[in-house]
């Protein structure tokens, strides 16, 4: 078995271009998708605050990463809303704020909540400072800043509209989605060795050798698994260590939970190899299959925004969905092991079914 595996890697060394190019494509597209799809909502600001108050409020507003604030004169800010260039303008005042909102802007309550929080914090801070003796004002100010930067405890809250408590991180989604999608092609290129060897009758030579057939399969499947797994590990590592994507502490876990997904795709490829008789057909089938699997599985967009019941039902047959569930589960969603067990079980079930049928059909075809 090791001899077959060694030869596979020797062949890989002779032609590594496709693998390297695929890896680069994953990295480039993931980076672009991660960047490009973070669309910030532009918001026009005008204020009657003095410079010091305005800079304090602005500092807090800039922490709201989903919005892009620009300061205008009052007339200009209102014109921006009238012209439809922005959906909302905010008037900042001493005693509060005012929102000037376009009719189709649905996030006004959420933005209002954010502004309430900021104003209450700033006003509270000002009230504490104002009520303190003059000689202690400086000391109290620095103490408040320190407490705000390093609070004793945090209170987390969830959006009530998001019943499952799922969070959304576009960078991670792009990274996981595109990697799981593209790695299908890499794994398929490994499994295609079996199809090519059968066509070229190399498989017959291996069959009549001293190596048992199951070891020949195992060597080929191990090779395909390693190709796919190492590519995923490489891409995730590049984005974790070099690009600095936040894995929410789940980088190492993501390298583990991706294993059942890779196994499942190896199995799926074997199943397709059993249907396709030639390397050309195999590649065509895999190409045609990979795109809808990615679309249904939520590699391109989050399934949470899909409303079609048919699409959601079909997504359940895509291994990518369960791969994404596992990866999101150990990173952005911080899911429990019990939550991860379901996608893990489904992937393992698919692995067994596809592999069982695939190898049986391959063996039967050999007898024809």
């Amino acid at each position, binding site marked *: 078995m090791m001899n077959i595996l060694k030869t596979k890697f020797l062949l890989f060394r*002779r*032609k590594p271009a496709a693998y390297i190019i695929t890896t680069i494509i994953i990295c480039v597209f993931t980076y672009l998708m991660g960047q490009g799809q973070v669309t910030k909502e532009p918001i026009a600001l005008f204020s009657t605050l003095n410079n010091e108050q305005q800079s304090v409020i602005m500092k807090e507003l800039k922490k709201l990463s989903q919005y892009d604030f620009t300061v205008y004169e009052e007339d200009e800010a209102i014109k921006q809303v009238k012209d439809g260039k922005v959906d909302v303008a905010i008037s900042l005042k001493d005693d509060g704020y005012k929102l000037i909102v376009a009719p189709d802007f649905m996030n006004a309550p959420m933005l209002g909540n954010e502004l309430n929080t900021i104003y209450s914090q700033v006003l509270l801070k000002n009230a504490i400072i104002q009520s303190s003796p003059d000689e202690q004002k400086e000391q109290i100010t620095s103490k408040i800043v320190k407490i705000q930067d390093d609070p004793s405890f945090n209170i987390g809250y969830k959006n009530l509209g998001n019943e499952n408590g799922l969070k959304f991180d576009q960078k991670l989604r792009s990274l996981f989605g595109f990697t799981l999608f593209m790695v299908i092609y890499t794994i398929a290129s490994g499994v295609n060795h079996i199809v090519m060897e059968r066509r070229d009758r190399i498989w*017959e030579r291996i069959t009549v050798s001293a*190596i048992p057939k199951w070891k020949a399969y195992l060597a080929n499947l191990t090779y395909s698994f390693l190709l796919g797994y190492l590519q995923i590990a490489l891409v995730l590592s590049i984005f974790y260590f070099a690009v600095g994507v936040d894995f929410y502490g789940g980088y190492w876990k993501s390298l583990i939970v991706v294993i059942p997904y890779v196994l499942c795709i190896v199995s799926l490829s074997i199943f397709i190899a059993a249907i396709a008789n030639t390397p050309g057909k195999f590649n065509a089938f895999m190409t045609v299959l990979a795109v809808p699997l990615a679309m249904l599985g939520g590699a391109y967009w989050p399934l949470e925004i899909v409303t079609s019941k048919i699409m959601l039902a079909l997504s359940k047959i895509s291994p990518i969905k369960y791969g994404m569930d596992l990866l999101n589960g150990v990173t952005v969603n911080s899911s429990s092991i019990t939550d991860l067990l379901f996608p893990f079980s489904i992937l393992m079930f698919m692995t067994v079914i596809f592999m069982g049928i695939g190898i049986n059909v391959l063996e039967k075809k*050999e007898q*024809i």
Partner: protein
Amino acid sequence: MEFMIEVVDLTKTYKKVNVVDHVNLYIEPGEIVGLLGPNGAGKSTAIAMISTLIKPSKGDVLLNQKSVINDQGSLREVLGVVPQEIALYSDLTARENLHFFGSIHKMPKDKLKERIEIVLQEIGLQDENKKLVKHYSGGMKRRLNIGVALLHEPEYLIMDEPTVGIDPQSRNHILETVKKLNERSNTAIIYTSHYMEEVEFLCNRIYIIDKGRVIASGTKDEIKSILSSEKTIRLKLEKPSKKLVEDLTLNPMLSNILAKDAEISLTVAKDTNFLPMILKLCDQHHVALNSFQIEEPSLEDVFLHLTGRALRN
């Protein structure tokens, strides 16, 4: 008599059609046996069953009188297979290919190293052994294809049309290699081909297969004796003449008439005085007879006689 490999009533049925139909044959140690037949005769399917690659629908393959259908290991240990296709990794060198295929026969490292050198020399690729196979000529690939099957020194070698698609020079080299291999190492060889001259050159015994059935078998002389009462005449005409061929076909003295361009081959009974009749027909059709040749019947003639078709139709 004890036969080392014996094939009994071997049958393979696909969609109710017997592509191999109750074939019986045997091969003794050290002999070269030919399976001669046209394309699609069932030779490769028979070979695949004998080499344990596919299971027969009926019948058995015996090694030392023990069935190998459910115990392939015993036969595989002593068997080498040269497939019709170039079953090699084109992105590896000859040496790397030999190393890989030797290693899957679990040969000890030192022995494998030694055998690789010997085989490279035997197939004449010692100077080209570091070239990638994809850069080899067709003949070189064919030679390596054979070499791979020789690495583990099999007692039996099955060669499925090993000279398909190569130039005459490479073909001669391969035939010589096979002959020497048999003489030197006493390896028994089953050689399938639709080239009559290859089988005639190499084989001690021959099985002629058509439509899945063995239609004749024996030594070359035994098979040719099927036409012992006849002789083969080859005529070379000045130009092709359809009408002359038609008239020849109608003549009851002549049989197995095969015309190709301006050449006609036919068989006549040994005592027949055929020449005046042929000259007369040529005269009638205004075709000059450039030459004629009387030959002993070949395997091709036997095949034509038995099936009414040429081997390489």
